[in-house]
């Protein structure tokens, strides 16, 4: 399914979300729009990604601002309940009851998602465990599973009940390359017909999965648009040099022994094809902190 970000209606609208912890502004007036499909949330450590996801997942209320998701306003008890009924949330550090088996744990979450009919619930639990490729170990206690397997159990718990809005906080952390590919496939499938917000440090996750991307830094949105638009911002601003370029915003040695630099290139520089990562690094720079429509 192809999603046109220009014509797709918004399923989530956030305006001026703010939240502080003590003297720290974790979110500083975040406004954004989400549509169906997978939106990537990029940002450095401490950018406010996890806090934003926790607010949008109704785990913590914002100090200021508002948002509606799938038509529900979580500032009322009824609105929050209605949104939670359509929500799947994979936290950054998912917790488990270690003595539960994978099946029992996802079944418990399914009950908490109000799936009361035992037969239908068990079918749903088997479906999501199968989707994350854990059918073979569903009878194993969680304390006996590897970190990657437990991460998949948490994803299964988020997927149970077929939620319309999925919030995934760094789901590929700690996974080996094969598991990461499998996860990408799962998330791409989940994005068909659903609104998925995916926080990650991996620009390649965004490049492969997302039809839109939001860059967050210092609790503020630095960029909102398509991955192609983010990449295009770096066009003409990436160059190669034999030595580290002193005026570059960032530069690093490549495997070829040359330096890849981003910023304002000197005259006659050997320009390179930009990547999403180049665009992301430029978006983090203060001068480029404008938001594209």
């Amino acid at each position: 399914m192809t999603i046109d970000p220009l014509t797709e209606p918004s399923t989530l609208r956030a305006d001026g979300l703010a939240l502080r912890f003590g003297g720290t502004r974790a979110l500083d007036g975040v406004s954004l729009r989400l549509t169906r499909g997978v939106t990537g949330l990029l940002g450095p450590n401490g950018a406010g990604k996890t806090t934003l996801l926790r607010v949008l997942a109704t785990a913590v209320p914002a100090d200021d601002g508002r948002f509606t998701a799938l038509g529900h306003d979580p500032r009322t008890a009824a609105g929050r309940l209605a949104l939670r009924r359509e929500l799947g949330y994979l936290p950054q550090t998912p917790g488990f009851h270690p003595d539960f088996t994978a099946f029992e744990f996802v079944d418990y979450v399914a009950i908490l998602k109000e799936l009361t009919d035992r037969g239908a619930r068990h079918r749903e639990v088997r479906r999501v465990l199968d989707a994350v490729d854990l059918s073979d170990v569903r009878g194993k206690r969680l304390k006996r599973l590897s970190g990657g397997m437990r991460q998949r159990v948490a994803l299964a718990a988020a997927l149970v009940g077929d939620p319309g809005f999925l919030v995934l906080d760094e789901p590929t952390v700690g996974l080996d390359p094969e598991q990461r590919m499998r996860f990408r496939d799962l998330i791409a499938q989940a994005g068909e017909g659903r609104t998925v917000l995916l926080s990650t440090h991996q620009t390649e996750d965004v490049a492969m999965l997302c039809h839109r991307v939001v860059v967050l830094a210092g609790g503020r949105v630095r960029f909102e648009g398509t991955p192609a638009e983010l990449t295009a911002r770096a066009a003409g601003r990436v160059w190669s040099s034999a030595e580290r370029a002193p005026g570059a915003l960032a530069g690093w040695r490549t495997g070829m022994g040359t330096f890849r630099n981003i910023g304002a290139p000197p005259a006659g520089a050997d320009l390179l094809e930009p990547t999403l990562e180049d665009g992301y690094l430029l978006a983090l720079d203060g001068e480029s902190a404008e938001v594209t429509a």
Partner: protein
Amino acid sequence: MRDDGVEAKEMEAAQVTADARRDTATLLRPLLVPVWRTLPRRALTIAGAVGLLLAASTRLPDHAPGAGPGLFVLRLTALSGALGLAFLLDDPARNTSATTPVARPLRTVLRLAMALPLTALWWTTALLLVPSPTRPPLLPVTLQAAATTAAALALATVAVRFTDSPEVGRSTAICLLTGAAVAVLTPNRWGLLATPADPWWEPTQLRWAAVLGVTLAVCALWTPEPLGQGLLRRTATTSGR
């Protein structure tokens, strides 16, 4: 004339609330077994066993006779039980189940409904283990035990409400022990640890009743999930931000 949009929203909200009430009743049965399994059984068992051993120690032949030593032992027994209950709200899966429609308060109430009758039975057993000549007045000592238990639950409730920590039992137990130490160091005339022989025994019972009332109010106030941040703020404990 009322706006149609507002009316439609109110009707939707009423429907959601009605659904929630119906669903809560339907949900209790499937929730019972998993919630029972999430209880911190090890902490509760150890605390309960220690408490009963303490109470049983009054039956040893060399135990000092009289209500004073009996009261001291039963206070230690109550503290032991409260230390176990400090772990009642521990939930290792808190992050994973934080945003489900069946919210944390319902699970908390279920845990309390499972643990408190057993606690009452345990306390009755502890009282019966103390021989009649050593046993202090039952109502005052039970009031003190109830207040100590409520204090443990109130501390745990506050820790859950204002932090993101999934396991608050350890910090709650430390706070409870600190409170107990403060109570011991406070002069009996103004404190909580008078004996029946003291002239200020009656005012002490009023203080215990006040502790019970305040701690129950804290539990009632901060168990529900907030819709806004409120004046008292939570702290961030996640690794990210």
